[in-house]
């Protein structure tokens, strides 16, 4: 059980998918039920990881390693450390939530729809657990396809444009990334005489700086497009706006994290010199800060509810990347926590949009107003999501942002100074959105008869709410889980960081 | 010696003139006739090169066979209206230019290394010590080149079947 736990988690959705194939398309309820069951099962199984996960051990756990294509040095090599553990849990939970959320929303070709969701689930988990670079790449690409369809088939009016844009953007990036990977691959072959994609082996070769920079930029493009960082972000709003609710939830909550995760798992440890290269760090930090402010500003003028949330993720992800390239324990761990938080809160925000979209089939903010009168519970949930996203203390958002700010402050005080403005704007656009949609009078008669949250929708929100509060009030366990892996990472990038006089007092 | 040369030039002239005519005549029939001329010239060259068997083949198979086939087709698809239309397509001049360029390039090749092309002096006929040309051809054809010979048979079969399939109204 335990030694194959990762594989089990990885392939549970796939198994569900296989069974799904044998359910006739006509039995829609059965299909939905089954999809929900299998995703829930996936989540529950992933919880088993916590039982035996040893947070005092920095290396990878639950490791499985078999030859896959030996002649190319490709292995089926999976395992998790604290970082991937959190990511996997996030993925499984969000996957379940997303599937549950689309019970009523999707009635057109549900079989294919859920098949896509499950396939995507496997892909995403795969990205987070694979330690072989080619395996990683395969999963990375695998994720694209279902998302392409989710957007392109079940999406909004401009879905095709959005889908193709999403696909081309990310694909272009990942192809460049592949070149980078291959470079490492060859370097390793030159140095050690045999080809391998095993990251733990690739770790051994320290390439000259210029080469590292080259590879770093190749990776950077791939990851930055996924994140998305500032100049590469324009696929995001379109994709989000056009995607079905579940699609945007997964996109925001998990897919974007693949990019940041890529930075943490591959760019930094594999290319330590380049990662510490000042020009690179400066550029990325500046891009991140631009992203933070820019995303917030643009959200401020959005007329489309979903687009606003989409741009807000640009801003939030800016925090994450900034934290990573602060290159110190606080920055990195904060970034990881913030990724989880963003998954939770932005996921909730998109679900909130989805709930109203199901009822009214429009996302224009101007269409709404005074919903708090009609749907008080809905308003409460939205308020909660908004606050957690705006970084209200005692909710998850604050913990992440604050830790990142620590990191940024340590690295360069001005970064922190600029990043903080993001918090201000964050409050601004979210509150304004809230005011325009929830507060005021119900001036649109269409909104009068709207039903409040149904039990299922409560079930969708509940786990996220609980999680948000937990992280906000008692984040220590998460930091404990991250302590060791982050320490290793920092030690690799900045050897001797941990040496030096310790401050005793609290 | 000079006789050889004279014959060569005569046949060469035949060949080229025939070829040019073939390409330039309006009516397909005339082209066919001129083609025959050109082919005869080639046949003559075979003779000069001591390839009597090929000479025979050329006369019989080409001029006998193919030309009949051509003329046959020409009759079948009546070409008189085709003969009235203009004979050269729009790209004729471009094409000529291109071919000229090819010619020039080949000429350059020649300039480049005439040595490369002259392999050995034309050796005098070895007084046909070992039987006539035809025998030798037959010999080699059925021993060393048996395989291509067999393939050729299949090839011809395909040609037959193919032309039938294509030309016959209903199979």
């Amino acid at each position, binding site marked *: 059980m335990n030694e194959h736990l990762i594989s089990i988690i990885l392939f549970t959705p796939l198994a569900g998918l296989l069974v799904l194939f044998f359910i006739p398309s006509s039995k829609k309820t059965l299909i939905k039920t089954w999809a929900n069951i299998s995703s829930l099962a996936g989540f529950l199984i992933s919880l088993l990881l916590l039982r035996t996960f040893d947070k005092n051990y920095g290396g990878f756990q639950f490791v499985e390693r078999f030859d896959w294509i030996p002649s190319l040095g490709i292995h089926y090599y999976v395992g998790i450390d604290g970082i991937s553990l959190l990511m996997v849990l996030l993925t499984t939970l969000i996957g379940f939530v997303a599937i549950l959320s689309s019970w009523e929303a999707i009635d057109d070709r549900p079989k294919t729809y859920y098949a896509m969701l499950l396939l995507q689930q496997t892909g995403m988990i795969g990205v987070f657990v694979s330690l072989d670079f080619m395996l990683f790449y395969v999963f990375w690409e695998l994720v694209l396809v279902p998302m392409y369809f989710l957007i392109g088939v079940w999406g909004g009016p401009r879905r095709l444009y959005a889908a193709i844009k999403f696909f*081309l*953007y990310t694909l272009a990036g990942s192809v460049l990334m592949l070149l980078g990977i291959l470079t490492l691959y060859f370097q390793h072959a030159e140095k050690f005489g045999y080809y391998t994609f095993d990251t733990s082996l690739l770790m051994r070769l320290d390439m000259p700086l210029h080469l590292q920079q080259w590879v770093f930029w190749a990776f950077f493009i791939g990851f930055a497009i996924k994140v998305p960082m500032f100049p590469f972000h324009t*696929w995001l709003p379109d994709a989000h706006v056009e995607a079905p609710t579940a699609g945007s939830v997964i996109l925001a909550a998990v897919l974007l994290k693949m990019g940041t995760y890529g930075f943490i798992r591959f760019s930094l440890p594999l290319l330590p010199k380049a990662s510490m290269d000042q020009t690179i760090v400066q550029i990325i930090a500046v891009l991140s800060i631009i992203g933070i402010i*820019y995303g917030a*500003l*643009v959200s*401020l*003028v959005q007329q489309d509810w979903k687009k606003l949330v989409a741009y807000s993720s640009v801003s939030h992800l800016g925090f994450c990347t900034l934290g990573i390239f602060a290159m*110190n*324990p*606080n920055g990195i*761990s904060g970034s990881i926590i913030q990724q989880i938080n963003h998954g939770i809160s932005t996921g909730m925000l998109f679900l909130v949009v989805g709930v109203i979209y199901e009822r009214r089939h429009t996302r224009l903010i101007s269409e709404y107003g*005074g919903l708090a*009168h009609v749907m*008080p519970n809905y308003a409460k949930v939205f308020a909660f999501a908004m*606050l957690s996203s705006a970084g*209200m*203390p005692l909710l998850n958002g604050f913990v992440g942002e*604050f*830790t990142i*700010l*620590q990191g940024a*402050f*340590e690295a360069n*005080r001005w970064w*922190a100074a600029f990043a*903080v403005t993001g*918090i*201000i*704007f964050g*409050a*601004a656009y979210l*509150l*304004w959105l809230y*005011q325009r949609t*929830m*507060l*005021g*009078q*119900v001036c649109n008669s269409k909104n009068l008869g709207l039903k409040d949250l149904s039990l299922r929708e409560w079930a969708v929100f509940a786990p996220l709410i609980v999680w948000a509060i937990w992280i906000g009030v*008692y*984040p*220590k366990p998460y930091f*404990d889980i*991250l302590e060791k892996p982050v*320490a290793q990472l920092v030690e690799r990038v900045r050897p001797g960081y*941990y040496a*030096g*006089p*310790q*401050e005793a*007092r*609290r | 010696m000079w006789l050889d040369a004279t014959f060569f030039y005569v046949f060469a002239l035949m060949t080229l003139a025939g070829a040019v005519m073939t390409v330039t005549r309006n009516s397909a029939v005339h082209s066919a006739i001129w083609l025959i001329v050109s082919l005869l010239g080639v046949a003559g060259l075979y003779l000069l090169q001591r390839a009597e068997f090929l000479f025979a083949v050329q006369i019989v198979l080409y001029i006998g066979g193919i030309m009949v086939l051509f003329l046959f087709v020409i009759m079948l698809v009546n070409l008189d209206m085709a003969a009235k239309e203009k004979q050269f397509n729009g*790209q004729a001049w*471009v*094409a000529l230019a*291109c071919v000229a360029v*090819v010619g020039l390039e080949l000429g*350059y*090749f020649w300039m480049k290394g005439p040595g490369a092309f002259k392999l050995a002096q034309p050796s005098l006929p070895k007084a046909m010590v070992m039987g006539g040309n035809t025998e030798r051809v037959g010999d080699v054809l059925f021993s060393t080149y048996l395989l291509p010979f067999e393939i050729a048979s299949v090839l011809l079969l395909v040609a037959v079947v193919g032309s039938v399939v294509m030309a016959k109204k209903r199979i």
Partner: protein
Amino acid sequence: MNFLDSIWLIPLFPLFGALAMLLIGRFLDPQAPSEVAVSPDLAGETRHHGHHHSGPMKFLVSLLCPGMVLVSFLFSLGAVAQLAGKAEKIHEVVQFTWLAGMPFHMANGVIARFTADWGFLLDPLSSVMILVVTGVGFLIHVYSTGYMAHDGGYYRFFGYLNLFVFFMLMLVLANNYALLFVGWEGVGLCSYLLIGFYFHKKSAGDAGKKAFVVNRIGDAGFILGMLLMFATLGSVRFLSVNESLSRLSPEATFGTLSAMALLLFIGATGKSAQFPLYVWLPDAMEGPTPVSALIHAATMVTAGVYMVARSNALFKLAPETSMIVAVVGAFTAIFAASIALVQNDIKRVLAYSTVSQLGYMFVALGVGAYWVAVFHLFTHAFFKALLFLGSGSVIHAMSGEQDMRSMGALKDKIPTTFRTMFIASLAIAGIPGLAGFFSKDEILWQAWSAPGGSKTIYAIGLITALMTAFYMWRLMFMTFYGKPRMDHHTAAHIHESPAAMTIPLSVLAVLSIAGGWIGVPKLWSLFGDGFRTFELWLEPVFASEAAHVVEEAHSGTGTEWLLMGLSVGIAICGILLARYMYLSRPETADRVQAASGPLYKTLLNKWYVDEIYDFLFINGMSKGGGRVMARFDSLVVDGGVNGAGWLTRFSSTVTMWWDTWIVDGTVRGSSFLVKLASYPVRIVQTGQLQLYALAFVVGIIAAFGYFVTR
């Protein structure tokens, strides 16, 4: 029982109340606000229209929520009593580690971890605060049961109110800046919720948002200050901060400390509505009056004062920052007071007066008289809360009318309200014997005498005092005296408020009188130390003050008497002037207005501050011209965020433009180009087989040519 170790319970009671309300409240108080909010013509105050029958369940609500606050008040009393009994007046309780950061390289290269406990600190300062918060809070809760009785969302109101008390207690009880920040943000949130309580009113929503966002600007400063503090001192826990500050040689980290202090002060200006971030407070009056009383007079707005007082050790080491604090405070005081002179909305007068009183407190902080600041905070909590509640009662009686010009001659109709407000006005005006006198006069004296102080600041303070007396009594005369100016319909309605409202008024009135007597000036030596409890009580917190007190003893007592007299005189002048202009010779008021036309208008329009923003928004833009601008203009008219709003709008519009046209454009463009490129390639394929053959030949030419040109 041991209250000291269970201080962590104190915030939890209100929290419990709040959760109860927000989760199951709707079932206790089944009232769907929707029907009041749908139709625009009911846009006004719903209080009079919300046809709402109170039930037993509702009674439960009005029992539970004030009860919770009462409980924590009693707990606080107990705790404070026990603290008083202790030898060293400080007690810390730590629940668990809340924020546990990773290793961090401090400025001096030492590695520290940012740890913030879920821990509580009870010392004289925080004990004063919790008593004020819970005590006044409780009274206002009681008052609200009467005031909000007919409102929709009764349970919601009390839920928010309790939540506020919870966060406020977190703020004052926290043992480190991070946890303080929790309360800090929390109260901001609650004020947002409560200001926007009548959320069907657009203005309410705007005001709430404005409050929150402006506060956020301050908070940004606060966060940075906190980070800087951690980076230099390696901790954000009050005790260790003070301790390491004492270890620190000021010269060593000179600039850093003042920067730190300044950043924290920026936070304070946001929360305590100091210039230039005061703009949100007047608008905040959109909230129900009890809210204005509790949050925007008594407690929340004083959080900034508390925080600065809390960081006194730091501010002492940063003299120039303290100077800035004093100046800002003084300026705010007179600036706000001047606006208050001419306002006609009763609540706005009080709002601006609050701003100016806060200014006083910051003056005190700036000159280094921390205990005085806290003292004024203490007294101000009483009389300003009283004033607000009183005005609430007036508005209640006037069935929602807030404009003083249509009031008058109410003193017989609503006697209790009148008497209590009378006392409060005397107190704020600084008539000797009432709470306000002691604190304010002490501030003025400190401004004069303290090393950090200066004569100018004193002068400003004095003028402000005059203005204060004037506008307060202008309010009184316009409201309660003269002849009635309201229409008959309202006139018929006027009635004294229910006991639930009047009793708190009376209690607060008593406090406004008695509150001051625990801090009489050192000058009145005949009273003995018993009457200077407040200063002595706070001594351990602002320990180093002792030195200054000593040194201040030998500056002439004569002067102090003189100044005291002067300020009293000033106060009385103000009152008389008001009486003259608004009671005995009402027409003079108009003449004065006419005489000082532009000045008057300027004041009436609050120095055009909001107009300046508007100018930046609209005129500037429309003059700036251009479609982008026009679009953005409309956005602004929609009511954007204030402050750097126009910049925000501008840049965001530009970025949007950049986004859609440049970045996105390149993407589309490239795909378009690719499509375009496909046509020339296709066009070659004309279907002319001889063209194909030609291409073939061209290929050959190329191949040969490659050889030729080689």
